[in-house]
């Protein structure tokens, strides 16, 4: 790693960690402090539960949104870095490094919170938390060991966060190529179209319309996520190889797209 890549990575990571700290503080304010103050003002303090509030912060979900949004912010850092003689290629490499490191930090925080705060305060077993998570179907593939299961879960979560960050990077780099007006248009139109498409697919599959057969698509998704094509999956014991490969390919595609868009960034007047 060149000195410039290292310096830029350090700069971006420091800035993003500061923002993560602010985001966590904001969540604590919204989920814990404000309800407490509200309870105090309205005289309902007896109904307020500090442990209830602090134990349901959903840090994993927060981090998912955080890393997508923070990595999509492209132009401001590009401006500052090109002003300081940093090339687009170095900026991209440093961003990828930052995504990998920040995702690791986010994963560790989310797991510490889940098993150190959420589980004990809600009187949940570590096993049930592990199986209820998105990585739940795969955690016991390597053996019926909780620690090993948590490590598998952490690995899958880490890769998932990296993919989320890289997707944010690709989207942000693409948006940064357009004027503010077109950016706003895309930010509004694309999610609406996406929701419309999703709604259409759900409705078409619900009504068993003969014109639309999603069996092929379902089979592809089952294959990509390592579910058996026939029969019921044995949750917790599925092979994580396919989802790992799928996520890594997704990461490579998103990282590649981010690279292509990043190379075209330029200063706007």
């Amino acid at each position, binding site marked *: 790693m*060149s000195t*410039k890549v290292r*310096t*830029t990575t350090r*700069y971006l990571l420091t800035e993003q960690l500061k923002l993560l700290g602010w985001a966590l503080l904001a969540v604590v304010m919204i989920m814990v402090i404000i309800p407490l103050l509200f309870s105090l003002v309205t005289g309902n303090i007896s109904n307020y539960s500090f442990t209830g509030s602090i134990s349901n912060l959903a840090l994993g979900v927060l981090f998912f949104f955080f890393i997508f949004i923070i990595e999509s912010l492209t132009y*401001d850092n590009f*401006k*500052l*870095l*090109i*002003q*300081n*003689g*940093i*090339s*687009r*290629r*170095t900026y991209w490499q440093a961003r990828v490094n930052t995504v990998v490191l920040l995702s690791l930090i986010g994963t560790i925080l989310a797991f510490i919170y889940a098993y150190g705060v959420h589980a004990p305060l809600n009187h949940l077993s570590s096993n049930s938390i592990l199986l209820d998570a998105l990585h739940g179907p795969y955690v016991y593939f390597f053996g019926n060991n909780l620690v090993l299961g948590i490590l598998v879960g952490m690995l899958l979560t880490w890769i998932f966060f990296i993919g989320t960050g890289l997707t944010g990077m690709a989207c942000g780099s693409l948006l940064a190529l357009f004027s503010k007006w077109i950016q706003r248009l895309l930010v509004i139109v694309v999610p609406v179209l996406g929701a419309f498409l999703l709604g259409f697919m759900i409705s078409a599959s619900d009504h068993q319309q003969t014109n639309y057969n999603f069996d092929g698509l379902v089979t592809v998704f089952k294959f990509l996520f390592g579910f058996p094509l026939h029969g019921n999956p044995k949750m917790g014991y599925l092979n994580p190889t396919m989802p790992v490969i799928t996520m890594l390919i997704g990461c490579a595609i998103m990282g590649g797209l981010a690279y292509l868009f990043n*190379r075209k960034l*330029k*200063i706007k*007047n």
Partner: protein
Amino acid sequence: MSIQVQAIQHAFHGQTVLDDLNLTIEPNKIYGLLGRNGAGKSTLLNIISSRIFANSGSVTMDDQPMQDNDSTLGKLYLMSEVNLYSERSRIKQLFHTTALFYGDFDFAYAAKLADSFGLDTNARFGKLSTGYRTICKLIIALCVPADYIFLDEPVLGLDANHRELFYQELIETYSDNPRTFVISTHLIEEVANLIEHVFVLDEHRLTLDGDVSDILTQAYTITGPATDVIAYTQGLNVIGEDHLGGITAHYVYGSLNDDRPLPDTVTVEHLDLQKLFVNLTNTKKEAATHVN
């Protein structure tokens, strides 16, 4: 070590901004980049510093491409008219960020300059007036350890006292630590004594590229009665003219052809850089208006 700009072509929304531009920027010289509004000065500086892309052509530093190249970009600093710093950042933070990426930032000199200009380094960049934003960028430009410093409109929003202070500091820092400065400005009179070499952009092309002293030795004002002046300047490269009462002035760029006799009624003087620039870049329409 020099920067070579070769056959640069750039168009924006179908309109040519730079057309087949070639120039070389040598080390340890102060250059003036002059041109009228929209001539393409900022575009050229942005292309050299890899902030935007030319449609064709190349910019190299010792045969190394400048585009997306950390090793060459790190030897260059462009202080642009457009603000690229975060509005939320404090000035001292910007000094530290610059030091992080360029290394060896002269903090002592930056503190001295901030004090001289009256810049509060605890202030946020976004809270500064236009003039103080310029001052902040100028301080960074003068303290950054780059071999090539490009200053695009360096005195934008500065009052006369601050402009004077900037020119003094520029001369001092250049004497102490010679490096290349390229100054793009409209205030030609103020920089005329600073710059050693001048590039003039006109109609998207480089129309003048030479040492100021050489150029000015070839620039003349021929003054006298209209008939005598017209007779004397016939066949010479007359780039403009002025009339005041019965007196006519012809501005000539190029050799005077010394064997022609100089009438007693006609005087020959050298042009200053600003007058030369104005006459070189006046469009025909404007020149006609000026004459009438």
